[in-house]
């Protein structure tokens, strides 16, 4: 056993607290201490600088970089990439001789490099991210990791930064070759920049998706399932990116519309990455935490961005008829966004843990107006309806005010379309919530997926049922829209779509179906709102004084003497 020589200083800053045993150091261990110092501080001045900077770097990045530098997979991929890039360079240049001296030959070479880079950027790196996260959960190392001070957000961002670093290394390998394509002419700088930006943004988006999906897969079966899904998405993304990059390079320049389109794509990618990371973080986070509200914030932001960008795009398009179609398309996007998010939310349990109740609004007024951000299916139902209605009304009215559509029936149709979509959301999500309340009372795990499945089954059943009845009524010869077809949302919306509005619009059957839809939706919404009333009366509970003071201390706020604990405040 080692003997005690001197005492350790206490942990610095936000470090852990508690009993701090003294440092144990024997005189014969000076050599080992020097080795540790060398490890912690580094050998050379550069090492020392890097080690000093690494204190601000995510520990996961430091760990995984150390692991990757020793791993065969990374070395193999890097060497293979270098060989392939060199081989392509030599092959392409040899095949271009002698025209290489006078013709613009940069474009085909750049396409080749982009195709080579697609493999590590869009296939290998996201798969490595998936494996990295999944193996943490599978091997049980995540448990020890979760006990540290690293939050789920830190862990996921750490994994993502590892992907970014790997990508940076791969891009730096190929960078001199890309510079060569510029020297060979035929490729402008903006094309090169766009090519790299698209590759980098797609790679990071896929890596984010991979890390988030991996955090959901808690067992081997789920891992295999999600891994296959991810691989499918990667292959599709690789083909799409390959096509887009080939087109851009072949076109030879990037127009300002191209940059705007890329900006929109980047914005969407960032927003969805934010959402994925939040979902993944909640999946591996503390169970007693409020895991719903943090997800609703990016959902709401995405909804608002869709309606804003859609509105701008619709207004920019001067033609009134195509503008109303554009609004309808944006409304459809909003409907899908809120429909999927809402149906998942309907599986949430209405139980708000004590920890989450500490963050509830305290006043009645705030409870009434902010309840829809609370966890649970009831507030979630209100949240989805209000968000969709808010986005849709803002979109339609702003377009209506800026470019009046009322001189034709188009404006009215657009409004009717938005109301019908809201009706479907209210109807289907309301039914899903009622089914979940009745049938999934005891189900603890898999509730969200079950709720989504119930919603899909309901929608498909409605489609099959209405079409079957309609066909039977018409002697299995044709489909004719009738009032009872209102549960079939695809059919009704197709009939109502502003650009292709058919003669059924003015028919009694069609109006009856819309009235039936709105009546049913109102009834279902009413029942759900009444059932949600109990969520408004849930009161905020006070944070125990000791907990509040400890949190203040961790935030670096000095505690005044008069705030010290009274007896019995240790755990209220």
């Amino acid at each position, binding site marked *: 056993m080692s003997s005690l020589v001197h005492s350790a200083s206490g942990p610095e800053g936000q470090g852990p607290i508690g009993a701090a045993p003294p440092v144990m150091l024997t005189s014969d261990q000076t050599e080992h*201490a020097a080795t540790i110092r060398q490890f912690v501080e580094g050998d050379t001045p550069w090492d020392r600088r890097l080690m000093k900077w690494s204190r601000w770097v995510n520990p996961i990045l430091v760990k995984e970089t150390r692991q990757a530098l020793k791993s065969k997979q990374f070395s193999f991929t890097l060497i293979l990439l270098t060989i392939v890039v060199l081989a392509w360079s030599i092959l392409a240049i040899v095949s271009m001789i002698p025209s290489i001296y006078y013709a613009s030959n940069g474009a085909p070479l750049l396409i080749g490099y982009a195709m080579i880079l697609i493999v590590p950027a869009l296939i290998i790196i996201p798969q490595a991210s998936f494996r990295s996260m999944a193996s943490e959960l599978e091997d049980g190392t995540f448990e020890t990791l979760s006990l540290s001070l*690293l939050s789920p957000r830190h862990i996921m961002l750490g994994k993502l930064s590892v992907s970014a670093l790997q990508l940076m290394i791969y891009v730096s390998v190929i960078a001199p070759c890309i510079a060569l394509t510029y020297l060979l002419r035929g490729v402008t700088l903006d094309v090169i920049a766009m090519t790299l930006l698209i590759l980098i943004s797609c790679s990071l988006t896929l890596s984010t998706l991979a890390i988030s999906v991996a955090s959901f897969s808690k067992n081997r079966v789920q891992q295999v399932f999600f891994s296959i899904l991810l691989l499918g998405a990667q292959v599709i993304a690789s083909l799409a990116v390959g096509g887009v990059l080939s087109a851009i390079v072949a076109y030879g320049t990037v127009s300002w519309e191209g940059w705007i389109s890329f900006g929109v794509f980047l914005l969407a990618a960032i927003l969805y990455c934010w959402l994925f990371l939040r979902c993944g973080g909640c999946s591996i986070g503390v169970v007693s935490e409020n895991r719903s509200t943090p997800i609703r914030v990016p959902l709401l932001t995405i909804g608002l961005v869709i309606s804003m960008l859609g509105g701008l795009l619709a207004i920019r398009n001067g033609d009134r008829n195509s503008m109303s179609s554009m609004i309808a398309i944006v409304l459809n996007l909003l409907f899908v966004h809120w429909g999927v998010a809402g149906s998942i939310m309907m599986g949430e349990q209405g139980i708000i843990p004590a920890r989450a109740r500490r963050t509830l609004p305290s006043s009645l007024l705030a409870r009434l107006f902010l309840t829809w951000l609370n966890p649970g299916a009831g507030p979630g139902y209100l949240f989805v309806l209000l968000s969709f209605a808010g986005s849709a009304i803002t979109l339609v009215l702003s377009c209506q005010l800026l470019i009046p559509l009322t001189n034709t029936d188009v404006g009215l149709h657009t409004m009717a379309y938005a109301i019908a979509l809201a009706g479907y959301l209210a109807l289907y999500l309301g039914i899903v919530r009622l089914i979940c309340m009745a049938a999934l009372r005891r189900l603890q795990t898999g509730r969200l997926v079950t709720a989504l499945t119930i919603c899909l089954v309901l929608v498909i059943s409605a489609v099959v049922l209405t079409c079957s009845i309609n066909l039977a009524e018409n002697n299995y010869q044709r489909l004719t829209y009738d009032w009872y077809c209102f549960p079939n949302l695809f059919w009704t919306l197709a009939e109502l779509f502003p650009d292709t509005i058919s003669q059924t619009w003015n028919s009694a059957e069609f109006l009856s179906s819309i009235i039936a839809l709105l009546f049913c939706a109102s009834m279902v919404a009413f029942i759900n709102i009444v059932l949600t009333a109990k969520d408004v009366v849930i009161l905020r509970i006070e944070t125990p004084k000791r907990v509040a003071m400890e949190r203040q201390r961790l935030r670096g706020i000095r505690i005044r003497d008069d705030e010290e604990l009274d007896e019995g405040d240790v755990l209220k």
Partner: protein
Amino acid sequence: MVDVSVANYHESTDPMIEMRRVHRFFGKTKAVNDISFEVYRGQVFGFIGPNGAGKTTSMRILSTLELPSYGDAIVDGFSVINDPDLVRRRLGFMPDGFSMYPNMNCVEYLDFFARAYGLLGKDRMAALRRTLSFTGLDKIASKPITGLSKGMRQRLCLGRAMIHSPAVLILDEPANGLDPRARIELRQMIQQLAVEGTTILVSSHILTELAEMCDQVGIVERGQLLATGSVAEIQRRLQGSTWVQLVAIRQGEALEAWLAGKSNVSQIARNENKLSFQFDGGSEDQAELLKAIVNEDFLISEFAARQETLEDVFMKITTGAVQ
């Protein structure tokens, strides 16, 4: 700068670990069924029970890795349900089975966890030095983890659990699979940590070891805590009697007959002049008995009272039933 001093205002007289009617159900299986106990600062609490008794589940609940179905567990005044993040700052957990990261050596592994616990600069170096030295891993600091023996891995795992100097250490079967020397060294490490003020909850199948290092033990079976306290306390509560062995030089039969007449003596067994019996009473009563025997002119060459061991207590309390 954070005022670290207020962190320790939790009164040292309050329990560091408190299980309050904790239940944990997995379907119909009651893995933990109404367990309550308290462990105070600097104590070593041994958790004993057969396989499937609920030890690991209880420890996982205390480590915030599982949520109780009912009840609550408190570590240093913070609830594992409501404030797991605060509990985790005070806690080091060494699980029964553990896996390591590939392509890492010992010092890199510990360095990662030191960083993950927010230790920076000199504090990190001090923590690494202390941990490597304490666990005896300093000589193999740069050895890859995959090449470590079972004992060394256990040491590394203990090092990871204590890298941030936690106030509470939870060790699930730490001596599992270790050779005798490694076990003794591990026991010494645990005792050393307890002396330094760390509260330790340790489970083990090796009861003799627990008896030597634990201030208190809890015997658990089928998810229920059957007894808690020091081994001596449990023994007193269970029976209050002691086995006495006695060797007479002659007159063994007469001595047996004489002892049979005593009210606090029972279950006498004789093998020629060697007698053993159960004696109901404390050490003063034993001295009185010995004096009485000598006064009766019986020649005694040996008189020994044997306390029940932890194994005896364990076997007496548990039924060996599994769920």
